[in-house]
């Protein structure tokens, strides 16, 4: 219960920062994707189910205020959280390289999904232009931000949330 409340507030705070503060530190009008870092971190540190719920609720917030189609971002963030949950218990969560690599992959998938489903289908075909102008800069900026905020999420997870030490989430552990 305690973890759920902490998670809820973390999501709200991240959403607030994402839509206000991070817009102010945008470089070339590219903002890093803090909510995605949160989903990936929670998936990595707490498993698939936590990643799924984190992703769902952060996506839902984006949908409620800014989305044109309700449920779209919830779906993408949810999958990002879920799939980074597969890394739970394969990798140790105190190593910074894993969340960085995961964030880069998930950000690429996230952006390709947004492009593919909302731009490509409307006939905007210049994928490489979008790749160079938006996707790659965003990945670099997001990974850089992950370098900083992952420590914070790590601290929140280990000090304010209940430990998730059960093996049940991992598909690789034989039972």
């Amino acid at each position, binding site marked *: 219960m305690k973890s759920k409340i902490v998670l809820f507030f973390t999501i709200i705070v991240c959403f*607030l920062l994402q839509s*206000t503060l991070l817009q102010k530190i945008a470089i070339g*009008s590219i903002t890093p994707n803090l909510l995605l870092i949160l989903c990936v971190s929670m998936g990595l540190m707490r498993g698939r189910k936590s990643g799924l719920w984190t992703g769902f609720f952060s996506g839902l917030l984006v949908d409620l*205020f800014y989305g044109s189609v309700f*449920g779209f971002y919830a779906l993408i963030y949810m999958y990002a959280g879920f799939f980074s949950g597969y890394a739970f218990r394969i990798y140790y969560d105190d190593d910074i390289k894993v969340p960085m690599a995961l964030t880069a992959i998930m950000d690429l998938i996230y952006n390709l999904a947004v492009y593919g489903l909302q731009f490509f289908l409307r006939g905007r075909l210049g994928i490489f232009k979008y790749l160079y102008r938006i996707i790659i800069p965003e990945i670099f900026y997001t990974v850089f931000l992950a370098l900083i905020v992952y420590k914070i999420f790590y601290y929140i997870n280990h000090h304010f949330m209940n430990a998730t030490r059960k093996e049940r989430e991992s598909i690789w552990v034989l039972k």
Partner: protein
Amino acid sequence: MKNLKKKFQFRIHLKSKHLLVIMTFFCGSAVVSTLASGVTSEPLAEAAGMIVVPFEKSIDGIGSWIGEISQTFQDKQELINKNQELQDAVDTLTEQNNILIQNQSELSRLQELYKLDEEYSSYPKVAARIISKDPGNWYDTFMINRGSNDGIRVDNNVISGKGLVGIVTEVGSNWATVRAIIDDSSYVSVMTVGTDDNCVVTGDLELIDEGKLRFSQLYDKDDKVTVGERIVTSNISDKYVEGLFVGYVSELELDTNNLTKTGTIVTPVDFKHLKDVFVITVNKQDAVDSGSTSQEDAAETGQEGTE
């Protein structure tokens, strides 16, 4: 008991996959229902807005407070340089002003001609401040600190001092989200001031960096529309009120069909540094509705008269 526990654990183990399927169905149905039947998430957004918006307002307040403080600590040399720059600017502006005064008579004549000025000032407006922006990089929507309590409704047009900014897409009691005209999914029906030719202005993510918009379907057989032509919202648009300034034509080329022209428009609004906007609290549809009802009334009275 042990058996039961084992069963319970087994269920939990399977759950994360099942959960994913269930939530995917949920999201999928939400997407389909919003696309197909136009079910709105308004009550949910309203509830979430009550939690989120006050924080966003206060963060924005703190941000501008810090901005003011950092401004007071500016370097002296910087101020001297700035003063020099401003002095130069004053000189050039004085010169420009002289030219502008000469143009004034022409301008007033044109204003009378198009009644732009009157209509601009005759629309009731509400000033609002931008408190947060779209979290992603793909779209250009933002949230303002005024909502239905201040008379803002969906489809209200948003302008800044310089020109058209966007349109209200969602409204809560004390907030509203605005889709900018540079947003990739934005379409505005516009016309040229000089020739009253209609065309469509669309936002394009590829042109955002240059501060430009794309326009298309301009039918201009006699090549009267030139670079620098003023573009305003058209009289036939059903979302945008007539005569809001959108921008100047900057590029123009004939389509391969040899009939219509496409090109780009430069907007005078600086979307990156936009802070304060005005919301026009009259919808185009209001005018249409009231017009039709009054016509109906007239028709009814006319019928009664004949009877």
